[in-house]
C-alpha cells in the first residue's frame, strides 16, 4: 500500500471517529455542563488537526514524488 493510500485511509478514519457514533438518545447527557457527545467530538477534532499538521511536516516531500499510487511495474511499463 502506498503512502498516499495509507494517509487517505488514516484521514478518513480520523474523520469518521470525530462523529459521535456511540452516543445514542438513550444515553444520559448528565445534569450540567455541555453534552458528553459534544465534548468527545471536540476532542477528536483536535486530535485530527494535530495529525494533519504532523503529516504535512512529515510526509510532504514523499508526496511530491511522481505517480505514487502506481506500483513499480506500472511505472516501468
Amino acid at each position, binding site marked *: 500500500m502506498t503512502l*498516499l493510500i495509507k*494517509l*487517505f485511509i488514516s*484521514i478518513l478514519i480520523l*474523520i*469518521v471517529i*470525530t*462523529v*459521535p*457514533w456511540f*452516543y*445514542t*438518545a438513550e*444515553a444520559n*447527557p448528565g445534569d*450540567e*455542563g*455541555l*453534552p458528553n*457527545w*459534544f465534548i468527545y*467530538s*471536540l476532542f477528536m*477534532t*483536535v486530535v*485530527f*488537526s494535530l495529525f*494533519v*499538521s504532523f*503529516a*504535512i*511536516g512529515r*510526509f*510532504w*516531500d514523499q*508526496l*511530491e*514524488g*511522481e*505517480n*505514487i*499510487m*502506481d506500483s513499480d511495474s*506500472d*511505472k516501468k511499463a
Partner: protein
Amino acid sequence: MEKGIFILDSTGIVVVIVYLILLIIIGLAGRFARKENSLDDFYLGGRNLGIIVLLLTLYATQYSGNTLFGFSGSAYRNGFWFLLSVTFMMAVIAGYLLFAPRLFYLSRQKRYLTTSDFIQDRYKFRPLSILVSLIGIVALCNFILSNLKAIGLFVESGSANISMAQGVITFAFIVVLYETLGGMRSVAWTDVLQGIVLFIGCLFIFGVIIFQLDGLHILSVNLREVRPEFWNPPTFDQKMSWLSSILIVGFGISLYPQAIQRIYAAKSKSVLKRSLQVMVFLPIVTTLFMLIVGWVGAVKIPNLGKEESDTITVQMLNFIITEVPQLQVLLVVFVAAVFAAIMSTVDSSLLSISSSITKDIYAPLRPHSSQAELTLFGKLLSWMLMAAMTVLALITQDTIWRLIEIKLELLIQIAPAILLGIHTKRVCAGPVFAGLIVGTAITLLYVIAIKLGSDIPVRPFGIHAGLWGLIVNVAIIGLGSFIKK
C-alpha cells in the same frame, strides 16, 4: 428585540469608509508593484507570496461571510450538532495534503495558472479541461452570490437606514476596483489586512460573549433551559449527514480554484507547508468562536425564523451594544472583520473566475492575443461579472448555508480528476470525462428536483446528493479505466 442602537451608526460608517479607502490604497500599491503586464503577474502575483502573505490570504479567503453568518445561523438552528463545521474546516487542509505537494511541484515545472491548466496538461483533452473550468466558475459565482447576500443582510440589519441593495452595490464596486488595479498582488495584500482584522474580530466577539455576557454559564445552563433538544445526541441520519458534510465541504473547499491558485502562487515549498500547518488549527479560533455566537444567541434572542437566524451575529452585536453601550466603539472592530471576511472571499473568487474564463476559454479561441490584451480582457470581465452577481444577490432567496452546500456538491465532482490525475497514470481522459459528466448531472438533477418541490429527501440516508454523484463518478472512472486497460 429592542432595535434602538445599531452597530453601523455614524461612528461605524466612518470606520467602514476609512477601511474601504485603505483597501483601495493597498490595491493601488499592488498596481505599482507590478513587474510585468502578464497573466502570470496579474493572476498569481509573480508566484512570490511569502509566509505571512500566503497564510493570511489563505485564511482570509477560506473564512468568509459564510463563516460569520451562515455558520452562526446554522449553529443557532441546529445546536451543538453544527460542531461538524469545525471539523470540515480542518478537513480542508487534509484535502490539500492529498494533492498540493505534487501539484505545487508540477506548477513550478509547467507554469500552471488555473486548475484546468493541470487538467489539460495531464489528460490532453480540451472538453474535460473546459468542463472543469465551467464547474469551478459556477461554484465560484455561487460563492460570490452567497457572500454578497451576506454583506447585504449585514448592512441592512446592522444599520437604521442603509438598504441591502445599497450595501451590496457599494461593496461590490470597491472589490472589483482594487481587484482590477493590481490582480493577485492587490488581493493578497488586502487579504493581509483583512485576515488580521478577521482574526481580531473573532477573538473580540468571543471575548465579549465569554467575559461580558458570561457565555460559559449561558452555554452550560441557560441554553439547556431554552433549547433542551440541543443536548440530544444526533440521530443516525444526522450522524450520516455529519460525516457527509465533512467530506463534501472539507474536500470541496480544498478544490476551490482560488485556493489552488494560492498553491501556485506560494514563494516556495516550505512557505506553503508552514502556512498549511498553521491553517489547520485556525478553525478552533474562528469557526468555533462563531458557533458560540450562534449558541449564545439562541438564549439571548430566541425564536428567530430560518431566514432571520442568518442575521444572528448582527443581532447579537446589536444586543451587546444595547446591554453594554460603552462597547459600541470597540464593536466597530467586528464590523470591520465582517467586511474583511466577505470582501477577501469575493475578491479571490472574482479573480479566479476571471482567470479561468480568460486563460481556459478565451485564450484558446484567440491564440495570437498578447499577454497585455488577455489581462485587459480579464479586467473587463471582472466588472461585467460583478455587475451580474450584484443583481443576482439582490433577487436570490436561498439561505446562506444552502447556497454554500450547492456549490461544494458540484465542486467535489472534480476531485477524482485532480487526485487520480496527479497520483496515477492508470486513469485516462475518457472515463474521467464520463464520470465527471454523470456525477455532475446526478448532483444537478437532484438539486433541481428539490428546488421544484419534489418529495424526495434532501439528503438520501443523510448523505448529500453530491456525495452520491461522487460515488458514481469514481465508479465510472474505475470501471472505464479497467476496461481500457
